[in-house]
């Protein structure tokens, strides 16, 4: 899945099956364990509580639930057999890649099977003639590039967590990254999928050729958050490494001026491979953590990357440098060597973790606004921050309007977590209000399922559900993710806190 693991407050029970939920494998599930062992081998099935607890959350650690049983298949046939067994017995299953997702999309089901793909991590083929790679779902995103790089190729989608996140998770979440602006998202790079459907059937979709005939099931499967099946083999396009890459760091005395530079670059018809922006608080955090040596006194910095044929890159560099100066940049540096470039990126890439040094806890938000609304939305976020006394650091993909506000708070301070959540939720409302999205790359998962009605009307949600049921009529594939369920969201579409009242009163069971 996507991006860096956050430092979030621990122990806040807000989740179906949070701490206190049953921790013993339920009897119905326990009866399946011998069959699961036959399928995956004894070492491929974890039933001990201590082992299961390792998997109780993904990157979003404030949603927790101990899985009923953990299975770690190594082949497509094993995946299919496990899912068929689940289907026969009506047992829910949750697929999990590297567990780096930030929407609790891989939150386990306490009465279900957690299907972990981490042992399926072979790169099966690097096919340079066809400019593609065939990989198993557990392969780490960056490993594809590592395998392709000696041949002059790379894999373009680059979530910030690319060293650890799995390609299978990227497919599930349609993960992006800084280079999406120019090169597109996971869905634009997946040519073929072997999937196991929620009924346990193995289906081949596409392959090395483009545009498989019939409905574009690949297009609909990518980003479906594990609700339509599990990808067991993935064919991705490889991209020719550009002749030249230049990274530019430009510093501004105001956030607004930085935003104007972004608009000017886009308006000039330049399409950089990345435009990232950081505000003063994010810069401060990055400096403290990695001493990235960004220009002193900057209220905002832009990291702009240009790539392509050398002559075109040189021409664009001149143009972008001038546009930044016109917008009021007081310092612009360009780096073309790999080392210098890495130094500029270091600050940006470490920003999430770095914030942990200036705040005991934080929430990473993931919303999108139209690029032209960036200035206004950032202003409103600043106002929200001032009103609530909750600090917000902004690090984001400015080129495509994907905000990642880091909402900082002290979890030792009573009520601070709640206020931070309110600010975080209000930021999403701002995104929706401006015609944006509640998630640009992390997915809906459990975390934002209750926000979906803010973005889509009932008819659209019902249509999503009709589509989902075509794949999973029994509702066993990653249930209660992506779409709001009345039981969990009925009373308050929005941020959930505390235990569901029906659960508290004993009238309903929450898992």
């Amino acid at each position, binding site marked *: 899945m996507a991006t860096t693991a956050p430092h979030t407050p621990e122990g806040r029970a807000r989740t179906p099956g949070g701490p206190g939920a049953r921790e013993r494998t339920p009897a119905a599930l326990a009866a399946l364990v011998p069959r699961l062992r036959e399928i995956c081998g004894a070492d491929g099935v974890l039933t001990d509580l201590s082992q299961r607890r390792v998997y109780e959350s993904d990157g979003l650690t404030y949603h927790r639930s101990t899985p009923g049983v953990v299975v770690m298949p190594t082949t497509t046939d094993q995946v299919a057999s496990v899912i068929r067994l689940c289907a026969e017995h009506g047992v829910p299953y949750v697929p999990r890649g590297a567990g780096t997702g930030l929407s609790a999309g891989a939150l386990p089901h306490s009465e279900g099977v957690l299907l972990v793909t981490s042992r399926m991590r072979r790169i099966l083929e690097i096919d340079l*003639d*066809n400019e593609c790679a065939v990989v198993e779902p557990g392969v780490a995103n960056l490993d594809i590039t590592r395998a392709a790089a000696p041949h002059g190729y790379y894999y373009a989608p680059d979530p910030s967590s690319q060293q650890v996140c799995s390609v299978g998770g990227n497919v599930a979440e*349609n993960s*992006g990254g800084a280079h*999406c602006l120019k090169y597109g998202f996971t869905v*634009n790079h997946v040519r073929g999928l072997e999937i196991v459907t929620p009924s346990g059937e193995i289906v*081949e979709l*596409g*392959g*090395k*050729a*483009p*545009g*498989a*005939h*019939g*409905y*574009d*099931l690949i*297009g*609909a499967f*990518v*980003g*479906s958050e594990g609700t339509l099946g599990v990808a067991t083999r993935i064919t991705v396009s490889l991209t*020719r490494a*550009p*002749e030249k890459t230049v990274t530019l760091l430009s510093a501004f005395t105001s956030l607004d001026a930085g935003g104007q530079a972004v*608009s000017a670059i886009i308006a000039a*018809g330049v399409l950089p491979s990345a435009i990232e922006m950081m505000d003063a608080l994010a810069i401060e955090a990055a400096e403290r953590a990695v001493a990235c040596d960004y220009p002193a006194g900057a209220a905002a910095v832009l990291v702009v990357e240009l790539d*392509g*044929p*050398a*002559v075109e890159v040189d*021409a664009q560099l001149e143009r972008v440098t001038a546009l930044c100066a016109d917008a009021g940049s007081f310092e612009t540096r360009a780096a073309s060597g790999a080392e210098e470039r890495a130094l500029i990126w270091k600050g940006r890439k470490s920003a999430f973790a770095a914030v942990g040094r200036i705040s005991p806890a934080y929430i990473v938000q993931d919303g999108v*606004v*139209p690029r*032209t609304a960036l200035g206004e939305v950032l202003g409103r976020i600043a106002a929200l921050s001032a009103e609530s006394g909750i600090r917000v650091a902004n690090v984001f*993909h400015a080129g*495509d*309007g*994907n905000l990642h506000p880091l909402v900082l708070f002290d979890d030792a301070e009573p009520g601070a977590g709640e206020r931070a959540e309110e600010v975080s939720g209000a930021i999403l409302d701002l995104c929706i209000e401006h*015609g*944006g999205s509640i*998630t*640009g*790359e*992390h*997915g*809906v998962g459990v975390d934002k399922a209750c926000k979906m009605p803010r*973005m*889509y009307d009932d*008819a*659209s949600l*019902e*249509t*999503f559900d*009709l*589509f989902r049921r*075509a*794949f999973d009529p029994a509702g066993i594939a990653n249930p209660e993710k992506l779409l709001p369920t009345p039981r969990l969201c009925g009373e308050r579409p929005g941020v959930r806190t505390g235990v569901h009242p029906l659960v508290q009163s004993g009238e309903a069971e929450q898992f």
Partner: protein
Amino acid sequence: MTQNLDVEGCTVREAAAEDTVCGVVPQQVAVPSDADSLSRVMAAAHRRGLSVTARGAGTALDWGWPPRSLDLLVDTSALSWIDHNAGDLVVEVGAGTPMADLNAALAAAGQRLSYDPVRLGGTVGGALATGVSGPRRLLSGALRDLVIGMTVVRADGVVARSGGRVVKNVAGYDLAKLHTGGYGTLGVITSAAFRLHPVPEALRLVSARLDSRIRAERALSALCETTVVPSAVELDWPASGPGRLDVVLEGTPGGLEARVAATVGALAPWASGEGPVVAEELPEGWGLLPAEGTVALVTAPPAQSVTAADWVREVSEAVDAGAHVRGSAATGALSVTFPPGTPADRIRLVVEGVRSAEGHPLVLLRAEPHVRAAGIDPWGEVPGLGLMRAVKESLDPGHRLSPGRFAGGI
């Protein structure tokens, strides 16, 4: 059985000959004035159990296979509007908008939808429903890669939206991709939002004549080893005589010089005649499919696109079917066109011959009436058909949207 459809905001008339869909004449034609009346007429059709096919400008009514049943043709041509937000490089557009109008509006702002239409005179909705992309799919992806949001009226008249107007968005299922190339069998598209690109300052076309399959393969592979970043690499492989590779380069006037030189350098050792030729604009009819005759689509792994094209020619030559192959060599998406009037039995032999070799599935996109009548299987084997049927069943349980026009009789 003509039933009177009295829907507010919607003109309904009896169908005429020009409303024929693959030889099937509908009972009535409805022309809704806006998305709401489209929704109302679809709901009315649902209540009456009418089968429905949607039409934009009608340029692809002879594409796909004949509907098994057709009571109502819904004409979306009045849903024509453009909402262009240049600063966001995004446009939202009504399904009935002529593609030419959209292109003109975007060009005026120095932007474009990086999609080469394959038909003249079509609408945006028609381009989406048929989903076939032209040469520039190499650089910016196929049409489905450019769609970021869509509003659709379901078979029951319910209006459903997916995606939105921002490029980066993973909220909900990307149903727009399903409808792109779905021939209106899952819903009637009312509007769509696209990501746009700036129009590059300059363009060059490098063309090389290639006398043999081997030379074409070598040329293509030499080109792939460069870093010139072409926008399109089109193969033209006629029924007889030499083939041609057309390489489109776009960028700044200064930058193009070196890229053109590198492209010429890669192709020159394999080109015959006077070597690669450079032009400053695209030829007339660039990327368009012939307006007449039977057309098939073949896909192949990119490295095998020349082999696939040559295999089609070989099979075609053996039965004198005159097949002409063109398409995006660097992506492996090829079209095969047969001259108008080519006898059905010859086309059948080519279709079966091409399908007999593994790795390049063929689908008949448009068949002349005598070819349709011959009962050739238009789709061949389509992997994932079971799931496609399930999706159809879920979204159109009455099978009333263009039944039979799609793969597997969907």
